[in-house]
């Protein structure tokens, strides 16, 4: 009977009107779009539009291009060793790269990376940095670090929206059958063994920094297959487990297990072995501004050496000296810097565009990059939901997105009126180059819809709750190592020009704070050796 259909339609229509009305009612929900600011200038570089004549000439002993974590860490280390004759050039108006952050009336919030796992205890520079920054407050009688509990992620830490309700923790559990549960248990038992494993060279099989990992063929062999291939080979078939594995890979590598080296897939689960007097090894350190907190600690030590809005355009060789053409993006002035030592603390694809082809003929190795969409939503109140309460990290099972993090989680007040949540979405599934092209024609409404449609599954009222949304699109957010990459990385065969120094987490194949920090410190160490 038609009447029934109509009733059905009418009801669904009314439902839809309740659910979606507010996104289209722009009165109180407006959207600000923030494009990847480096993109415009990055494309200027790519398209070679930087032939301005130099009006100023300057000289420094050491020049660092890029004030992301690796560049800042190198600067921090140089300064610590008493070297002052250096400058860090940064294209954007704020340093930080993937550790940049934003701030509004409600809270600070990350514009990229948002936490640091408890560091392993084999890298003294990092420990020292954490001590100086007040993140490690002391040591217990057994020598275990005591972390500042304001920074350890507070409970409730993680929840997952599964089968229409929130469960505690991100590993799927609610409503799973015994088979799935058993398989998940088997998977984590496997990963525990990988954590303990060492190679014949005595090194940990999977370490952080990656450089400390074993070169034993037994472990390197995992780089020959994809993570999906390994999961299949080991007979892991539970959809819940496979979803979880995919979620993790998207979260840390911006890619799917099919396209990722199994070495990296396992590394993700097996590399964190941090211990603490007042936390367990799965705990993490986090701040409202995410890793922007760590970035500020590094920055404050080397503030006077950083030049913002300075775009390095081209690098050429001039005898033993390196010449860098720099364009000030605020004044449009051009500066020619010459230096004895040049540090490229930028991703390799950017470096490749800067290097003068005649002076640097070799082709830099390329890695695929994952693209990310990040949205900071200011909500009128905490989002509800059946089951486990709002946590720091909130993920939706089966969703294409990566869920959201509550930027206000570490605030100590009991009741929050408004909060800021940071939504993450790894744009996988399509050709990255194509995605980036699509991103260039940045359609705010379309991305807005993508965020809202995803969140609405768990929060039907997200349209009404959202007061403001700030979108950020990261075209090259992180390297996504394909099989074969880690053999090259661990063999140290980077085939990079010897005249200049490269310093970036990409050289570790892993875009995380620890690797960027390690690369920065190691680079500074080499520079210090040269100068002595």
């Amino acid at each position, binding site marked *: 009977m038609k009447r029934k259909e109509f*009733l059905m339609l009418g009801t669904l229509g009314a439902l839809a009107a309740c659910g979606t009305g507010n996104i289209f009612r722009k009165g109180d929900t407006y959207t600000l779009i923030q494009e990847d600011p480096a993109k415009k200038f990055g494309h200027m570089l790519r398209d070679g539009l930087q032939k301005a004549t130099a009006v100023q000439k300057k000289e420094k002993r050491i020049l660092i291009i890029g004030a992301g974590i690796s560049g800042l860490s190198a600067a921090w280390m140089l300064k610590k060793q008493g070297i002052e004759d250096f400058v860090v050039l940064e294209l954007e108006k704020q340093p930080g790269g993937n550790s940049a952050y934003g701030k509004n009336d409600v809270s600070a919030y990350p514009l990229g990376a948002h936490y640091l796992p408890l560091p392993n205890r084999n890298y003294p520079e990092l420990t020292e940095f954490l001590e100086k920054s007040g993140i490690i407050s002391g040591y217990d009688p057994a020598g275990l670090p005591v972390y500042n509990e304001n920074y*350890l992620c507070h409970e409730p830490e993680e929840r997952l929206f599964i089968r229409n309700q929130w469960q505690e923790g991100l590993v799927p559990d609610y409503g799973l059958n015994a088979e799935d549960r058993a398989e998940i248990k088997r998977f984590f038992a496997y990963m525990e063994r990988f954590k303990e494993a060492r190679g014949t060279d005595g090194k940990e099989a999977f370490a952080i920094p990656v450089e400390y990992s074993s070169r034993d063929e037994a472990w390197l062999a995992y780089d020959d297959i994809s993570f999906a291939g390994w999961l299949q080979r080991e007979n892991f078939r539970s959809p819940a487990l496979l979803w979880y594995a995919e979620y993790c890979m998207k979260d840390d590598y911006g890619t799917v297990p099919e396209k990722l080296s199994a070495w990296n897939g396992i590394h993700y689960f097996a590399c964190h072995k941090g211990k603490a007097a007042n936390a367990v090894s799965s705990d993490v350190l986090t701040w409202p501004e995410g890793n922007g907190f760590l970035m500020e600690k590094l920055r404050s030590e080397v503030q006077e050496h950083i030049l913002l809005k300075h775009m390095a355009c081209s690098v050429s060789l001039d005898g033993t000296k390196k010449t860098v053409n720099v364009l000030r993006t605020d004044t449009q002035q051009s500066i020619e810097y010459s230096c004895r030592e040049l540090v490229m603390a930028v991703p390799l694809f950017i470096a490749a565009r800067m290097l003068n082809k005649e002076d640097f003929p070799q082709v830099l190795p390329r890695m695929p990059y994952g693209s990310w969409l990040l949205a900071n939503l200011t909500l009128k109140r905490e989002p509800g939901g059946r089951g486990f309460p709002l946590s720091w990290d909130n993920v939706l099972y089966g969703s294409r997105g990566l869920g959201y993090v509550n930027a206000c989680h570490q605030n*100590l007040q009991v009741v929050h009126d408004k909060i800021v949540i940071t939504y993450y979405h790894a744009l996988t599934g399509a050709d990255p180059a194509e995605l980036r092209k699509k991103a260039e024609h940045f359609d705010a409404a379309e991305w807005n819809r993508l965020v809202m449609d995803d969140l609405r599954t768990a929060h039907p009222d997200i349209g009404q709750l959202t007061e403001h949304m700030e979108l950020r699109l990261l075209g090259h957010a992180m390297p996504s190592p394909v099989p074969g990459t880690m053999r090259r990385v661990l063999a140290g065969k980077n085939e990079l020009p010897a005249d200049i120094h490269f310093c970036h987490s990409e050289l570790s194949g892993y875009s995380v704070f620890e690797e960027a920090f390690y690369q920065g410190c190691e680079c500074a160490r080499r520079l210090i050796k040269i100068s002595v």
Partner: protein
Amino acid sequence: MDKNRKLSLLLLISVLVIATCGLIYELVAGTLASYLLGDTITQFSTIIGLYLFSMGIGSFLSKYVRGRLLETFVRVEVWVGIIGGFSSTVLFLSFELVHSFSFILYFLILLTGTLVGLEIPLLMRILNEYRIGFKDIVSRVFTFDYVGALAASLIFPLFFVPKLGLIKTSLFFGILNVSVALLLLLRFPLEFKRRRGLLIFSFAALTLLTIGFVMGDRIMRYAESLSYPDKVIYSQSSSYQRIVLTRGHNETRLFLNGNLQFSSLDEYRYHEALVHPAMQRSRSRSSVLVMGGGDGLALREILKYPDVQQVTLVDLDPALTQLFSGNEYLTRLNERSLLSPKVKVINQDAFIWVRNAAEKYDCVIIDFPDPSSFALGKLYSNIMYHSLHRVLSPGAAIVIQSTSPLFAPNSFWCINETVRSAGFRTLPYHCYVPSFGEWGFVMATEGDFTQARSALPGGLRFFSNEAFAAMTHFPEDMKERPTGVNRLNNQMLVHFFEKEWSSYSAH
């Protein structure tokens, strides 16, 4: 012929009303179910499905209706009005009373759907009797039907839910349904054989529904009061919590978010035990800090000491402190303590406040709500206790209400251990408060505990130094146990509390 045309026009208008009402009942049920049960998608789709299916049953049953079609139609109409109209009232009330709420929900939908399903086929047959062509009947009936459905789907979310609320909305449409029946009965008296009975029936239904409509707000309040044992005399939702006061035959109780805060019958036991031991052991008492305790009852005890010069009370909720400084009955209970010139009330988050506080205090009374959520659990963390050091003057004593050592021993001893981990010496104690049961407190100082320093003020009904000696003894079933420290990154206390109290749900 003219009369027939009038009747058929009225019948078609009634199609419009029926369609609107029918859809409204469906929407009300769906919205209510998703309010009360959560999970909008499942609730709405099962309700739509069941409703349409029931309409099918109704349509099927319509063929068994023979003769006196108009009378049956009017009867059905009145029944739809009654059942649909009172559906949300019944659902709201039964949610608190009945365990099988879903059964009632689906039963009501089945009933309403069946009756609504009967209406249209009956109407078509009635119109057929008045010799309107089949083509026209189908066309007109469905036109009005669909227009009515559209009207309902638009006015429901845009007007009725925000303006009237669910209970009054469904009663209003019940009234509309019955009015259609009455209109038919009154305008076309000759068409009905048993008109008197039907008229009485319809008027009775209309009266009932109208009374319901007028009392809609009271029904709403009553539905809420069912979760409290006594009569609700005051209820208000502040920005932070739901404040409810109830009055029994000889006692008043305060509930915050449904949790009992005190009963006027025995609160003196709780507040005397909370305040006096710490006041007795503080080196000085000129300046006292109270955190939580917006009811002013702990304050009342503090102000019994003449050497108290000023008291700062930090409570998050201005609605609570205002209620307890304004209401006549409540100010009699707290002896107008919140209005004392010695008292300064600060409505701020205690955790944030204490980290920025500039003054020092001789005695600190902490009376926070129980750690029943992660948000409240923060107030019992080692970081919170660490930050207390900065507001303490030398020799100050602190006391913390610490839930029940009998019902929740791990929670109680966890608070004790956490306070100790923050660099305090502790003295845990407990007493019996009939409306709470056995209740515990943790007293803490930076240095050694001393004996009581001064005489107790007069007028105490429960507390004495002799009684306190017994309070510090913990018998076997509440004795100290190792638990671990409640840190922000483990919120151990909230887990203990939830587990331990879930077996005492009566509380």
